[in-house]
């Protein structure tokens, strides 16, 4: 009974000083808002990283040519990966599957429908390696690879772009002006952020190299290791280092890698000297994703520190305003004591007021955080953020922490109020 009346009177007193209360609550609002937004974005990114890991397959190593550099100046990607490199990699004992990849952007046409999209030339293993299930029709066969057949598998988005609701299977499309027969449609995977696997055309690498692009070198070789193989060790390059990121030039070794590693085998096949840098980059998908995940963690720690500081400042703000309030209401405290309030009644009254202020600040902060979390993906700079994941427990926790801050910083002002001498307090002007 008294408790509810205390809360009601605390609300009244906050409402009587609306602006002041709001300013005092601002620190808490920002702090809690930051926590909510941070955890929502973090959880969203984490969920996406896990989904990506599942989609990629975690035993995947990708080999790409390194950048050529001369005295520190980048001079474009080297053209050094060939089909024979892929065949040599298959012979390594720890390797399960290998597929060469070439690619480029092409103009595809069916009747009067046009689309400009990405084309991958690869082997039939690619669908297994990259975990691209065929939904309708089939993938291409080894025979079709050997015969440079003009057959194509479409991503679902590409299929819809060209055929609308019609069934593309068995139809013929023109790719850069030549006829290709549609033999399969892939299952939709969803946009991965940096590329959309649903919008692509996949044809045999032989066809792509000999007929379509006229190429002799590969863009990439994908390797799937046997289960339980240490991918970082077998890549022959330190993984997770800056030297291995996209666009980097070759890696210099102090001790050349063994010939059973990817880098070692490539150095041998490409006749690199011991002092030369690697002319290929070996990327480990799991490591790339882990690094992204690490980045998310750092981001969370940063925002978490901001939130902690903000909550601290918010708490001090509440303490400051509570001290002012206690001074302002000295006569009221005297009156309450004269009519029978005990020290603990006064303590409770001001503690509840601090609690209501911080709790309300926490609730507004949750609102602010939700708006922020939902709004951030709309900001152009942050458009590649994963969709935020709002969790109820985070909000409950944030409001509880805010209340805790309110109690902690409200304790001293409330204690001072409770210790006021009633005679002095009644006489206070």
């Amino acid at each position, binding site marked *: 009974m008294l408790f509810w009346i205390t809360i009601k009177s605390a609300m009244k007193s906050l409402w009587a000083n609306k602006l002041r209360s709001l300013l005092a609550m601002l620190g808490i609002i920002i702090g809690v808002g930051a926590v909510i937004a941070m955890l929502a974005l973090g959880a969203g990114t984490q969920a996406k990283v896990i989904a990506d890991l599942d989609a990629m397959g975690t035993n995947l190593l990708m080999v790409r040519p390194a950048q050529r550099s001369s005295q520190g100046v980048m001079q474009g990607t080297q053209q050094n990966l060939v089909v024979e490199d892929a065949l040599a990699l298959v012979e390594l004992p720890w390797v399960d599957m290998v597929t060469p990849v070439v690619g480029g952007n092409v103009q595809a046409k069916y009747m009067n429908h046009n689309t400009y999209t990405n084309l991958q030339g690869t082997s039939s293993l690619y669908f297994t390696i990259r975990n691209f299930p065929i939904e309708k029709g089939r993938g291409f066969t080894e025979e079709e690879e050997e015969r440079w057949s003009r057959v194509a598998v479409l991503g679902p988005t590409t299929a819809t772009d060209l055929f609308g609701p019609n069934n593309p299977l068995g139809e013929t499309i023109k790719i850069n002006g030549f006829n290709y027969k549609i033999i399969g449609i892939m299952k939709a995977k969803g946009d991965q952020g940096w590329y959309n696997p649903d919008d692509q055309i996949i044809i045999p690498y032989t066809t792509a190299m000999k007929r379509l692009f006229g190429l002799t070198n590969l863009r990439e070789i994908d390797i799937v290791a046997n289960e339980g193989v240490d991918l970082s060790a077998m890549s022959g390059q330190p993984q997770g280092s800056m030297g291995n990121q996209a666009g980097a030039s070759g890696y210099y070794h102090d001790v050349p890698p063994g010939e059973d590693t990817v880098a070692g085998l490539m150095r041998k096949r490409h006749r690199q000297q011991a002092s030369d840098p690697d002319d290929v980059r070996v990327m480990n998908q799991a490591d790339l994703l882990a690094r992204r995940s690490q980045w998310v963690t750092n981001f969370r720690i940063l925002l978490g520190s901001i939130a902690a500081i903000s909550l601290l400042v918010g708490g001090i703000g509440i303490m400051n305003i509570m001290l002012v309030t206690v001074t302002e209401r000295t006569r009221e405290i005297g009156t309450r004591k004269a009519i*029978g309030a005990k020290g603990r009644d006064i303590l409770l009254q001001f503690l509840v007021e601090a609690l209501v202020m911080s709790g309300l600040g926490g609730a507004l902060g949750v609102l602010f955080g939700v708006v922020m979390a939902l709004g951030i993906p709309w900001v152009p700079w942050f458009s590649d953020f994963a969709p935020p994941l709002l969790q109820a427990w985070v909000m409950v926790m944030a409001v509880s922490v805010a209340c805790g801050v309110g109690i902690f910083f409200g304790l001293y002002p409330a204690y001072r109020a409770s210790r006021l001498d009633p005679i002095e307090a009644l006489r206070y002007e």
Partner: protein
Amino acid sequence: MLQNSSLLWATDLVKTYVMGENVVRALDGVSLSIEEGEMVAIRGPSGSGKSTLMNVLGCLDRPTTGQYVLAGEDVGRMNDNQQAYVRNRRIGFVFQTFNLLPRMNAVENVELPLLYAGQRNAKRHAMEALVQVGLGDRSDHLPNQLSGGQKQRVAIARAIVTDPAIVLADEPTGALDTRTGNDILSLFKSLNKQGRTIIIVTHDLKVAEHCQREIYIRDGKIALSDDHVAVPRLPPPLPNRQVTKTHE
């Protein structure tokens, strides 16, 4: 229980303060007794010690030495919480400046002591008290919507709502014009007729004349006890061990 039948009695109250190097004796051996149903004025010039006496009688302060018994309890030696309890149940305060809480309406102000007492039906009792002071129709008004006289009536309702042993009024007409002041004094007199014990602390002889008895205090001593109705009986001093403590 006490053998003395007076509602309130005090023996040889002394209150000293240390101010710098000097020891000030604000109360210098005050003995008095007040009977149930009396209306008494405590009068004195400023600096006479009447405020100190009021604080001691109101359990806001403790005497340095001496004994003070209210409604059969030795209240002069209680700790803070016990004193708060006595102020809540046995004493109703009326202040010169009303001291209503500004954000609460009349009835909420009046029920506040009952809430601290943990009493049920606080609202109903508060309404009854407001009706008793003639403000039954102003219960939802905020203090700043009331005139000075009305505010003091609300304050009086707050003082009597707990049915206290004494109502202790500190210059209750000091902030009011003469006519309103007289109305308030009439209200005190009518409450007194219904059996309330009322103590008015004032410097104003005209206010004191409304009371049955006046205790005049000067330099911390009772200078004159002008008996309008009956001679006050000073109680015989009692040893402390005969006093029963009943609370906490």
